[in-house]
């Protein structure tokens, strides 16, 4: 066997597979993540709210007295109430305590609202930026009025359709995130490490073709990411019933484009530094914002409009949106062509710039 492209590819694969941690990060992690987040946001949900209740000394807390103490005097205690409806179980923990103590509980995240009573009306103190506070206000004002959390208008029908659950949103995100991480660490970091260990220069000081070297890196990573993704999708199908509703060919195409995009980025980022710590920092600097902003775990629609227009040009956003469209909305090849083109061009441009300035020695 003398084909150096093939031998290089196999060597890269062996190098990766024989690293004990790598298997966990590429297979174990996405699956554990989907189990954890999937269970947290699916099935009959159970939600817990903590609330601080401050009795005042002027004997006017009629509502609190009547609701919790049968008209008697409120004393320091913890009262729990359970509310069951079609949405699942909601539990409220009422901490009856002093204002100072309630502030401490708030700082520790044990409660998210503080309630006082003034002239027979409840006053809700909460951070207006925290949606939980508002939810608590709506639910509890019903509770103090009617004894349950919802108003008596309308009824609830939880959505169980495929493609509309949180897990359907999450799985495509975990898939694209996994590909980005796999390439940024498995290619970018690995190349920087090879440079820092003087291996890159040793290899280039042979008749080895640089194109073979790069192609082998790309091919071995493609094999690994295909494997990772198939494992994740099969798992998601059997465990959560996540189905790919669109075209498999379209998925393959966007998958390839995403691989090219991040491979190009990896070559560009790894083009100069021989310092693995610098490399580490640069990779984190690139991947962390994308992980947070690109709508992997929650939609980026809640960001301000100017931010959304920036977020939308991130390669991970484009990649994830297209994969989601295929998996959940049944998109076909035509629908993802623009995404394929954008990611492909992004990858090609970053790759060739990276290669142009690449420091082999």
């Amino acid at each position, binding site marked *: *066997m*003398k*084909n*150096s492209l093939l*031998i*290089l590819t196999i*060597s890269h694969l*062996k*190098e990766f597979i*024989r*690293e004990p941690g790598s298997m966990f990060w590429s297979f174990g992690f996405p699956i554990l993540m989907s189990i954890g987040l999937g269970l947290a946001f699916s099935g009959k949900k159970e939600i817990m709210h903590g609330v601080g209740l401050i009795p005042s000394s002027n004997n006017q807390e009629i509502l609190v007295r009547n609701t919790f103490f049968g008209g008697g005097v409120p004393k320091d205690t913890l009262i729990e109430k359970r509310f069951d409806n079609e949405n699942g179980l909601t539990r409220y923990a009422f901490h009856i305590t002093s204002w100072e103590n309630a502030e401490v509980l708030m700082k520790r995240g044990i409660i998210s609202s503080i309630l006082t009573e003034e002239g027979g009306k409840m006053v809700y103190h909460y951070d207006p930026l925290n949606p939980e506070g508002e939810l608590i206000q709506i639910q509890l004002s019903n509770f103090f009025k009617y004894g349950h959390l919802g108003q008596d208008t309308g009824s609830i029908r939880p959505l169980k359709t495929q493609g509309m659950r949180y897990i359907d949103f999450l799985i495509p995100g975990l898939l694209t995130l996994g590909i980005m991480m796999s390439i940024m660490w498995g290619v970018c970091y690995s190349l920087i490490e090879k440079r820092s*260990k*003087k*291996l890159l*220069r*040793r*290899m280039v*000081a*042979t*008749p*080895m073709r640089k194109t073979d070297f790069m192609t082998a890196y790309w091919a071995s990573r493609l094999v690994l990411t295909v494997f990772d993704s198939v494992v994740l999708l099969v798992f998601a199908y059997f465990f959560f019933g996540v189905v790919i509703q669109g075209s498999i060919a379209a998925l393959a195409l966007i998958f390839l484009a995403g691989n090219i995009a991040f491979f190009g980025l990896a070559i560009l980022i790894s083009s100069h530094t021989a310092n693995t710590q610098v490399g580490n920092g640069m990779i984190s600097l690139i991947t962390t914002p994308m992980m947070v902003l690109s709508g992997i775990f929650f939609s980026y629609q809640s960001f301000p409009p100017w931010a959304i227009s920036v977020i939308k040009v991130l390669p991970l956003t484009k990649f994830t949106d297209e994969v989601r469209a295929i998996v959940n909305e049944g998109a076909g090849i035509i629908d993802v062509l623009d995404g394929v083109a954008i990611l492909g061009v992004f990858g090609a441009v970053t790759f060739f710039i990276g290669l142009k300035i690449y420091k082999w*020695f």
Partner: protein
Amino acid sequence: MNPVANQTEPVIRIESLYKSFKDVKAVNGINLKLFPGEFIAVLGPNGAGKTTLVEMIEGIQKPDSGEIFIKGKQWKNHHAELNRVLGISLQETWFIEKLTVKETLILFASFYKLGEARVKEIIALIRLEEKEKAYVKNLSGGQRQRLALGIALLNYPEVLILDEPTTGLDPNARRELWEILLKLKTERNTSLILTTHYMEEAEYLCDRIIIIDHGKILAKGKLNDLLQACDKHEIIEIGLLGPPPFDFTTVPGVQKSRFNSKDNAFVLEVKRIVETLPLLLKKLEESKTEIAELQCRTLTLDDLFISMTGRHLNA
């Protein structure tokens, strides 16, 4: 001049090579010729510029100025071709840790379109048969050095450039490596540039020696010529129990005296031991000084180096 040298073209010719890093002149005007079948040792202390010099010859670093011709060709136009002429081992290379010795050799062999047969030969040559299936990560320092040499030898190179190939090897392993190299010289007329801190290595292995420091050649030539040129061929090392009773240079024949604190002895450079030693002993006896230690030997490269720079070669 080497008589062969006049008739043949040098395989490597270097003309006024310069290379600086910020404020360090790593290589500061070096000229050099290497002829077919010739072994040259580049000796020098840490930071002398050895690695910078050989890496420029290997095409890894770019000179600031000066020319390098390998078989009459230069790196900028003949990169692929010259990579086939040279076999190199860098001062420190970490090969892929989770590949085995054999897999590593197969990988490098594939770059030269060589197959497993050659890999087997090399494994036998560098005596790593037992470690063939061991991960590179688990090799000892010396075994790694041998693997690096094996990779350098894969493509039957005409010119070998080895950067400190025996640093960290035990004496036996070092000798084995010397024998491998000498065999290549006789069987294949291979040329060699080798950097080292060990004088014995340079003496035993090489036809010519180049001593460099601060990027400049201090002396070059055959070992004997170098030593002869020095005019002080012999050394008396003497350790005393008390302070020296007189200045040693007042003894006829002693040309230079210095104190070697490492061995706690005086090193006297003399023209001829047989003439000077009796006079020295007689004078010491007269002054009733007791001798703790006495050693006579011929001048070595290290002595030469010290008298040129005031420093040891392998400090």
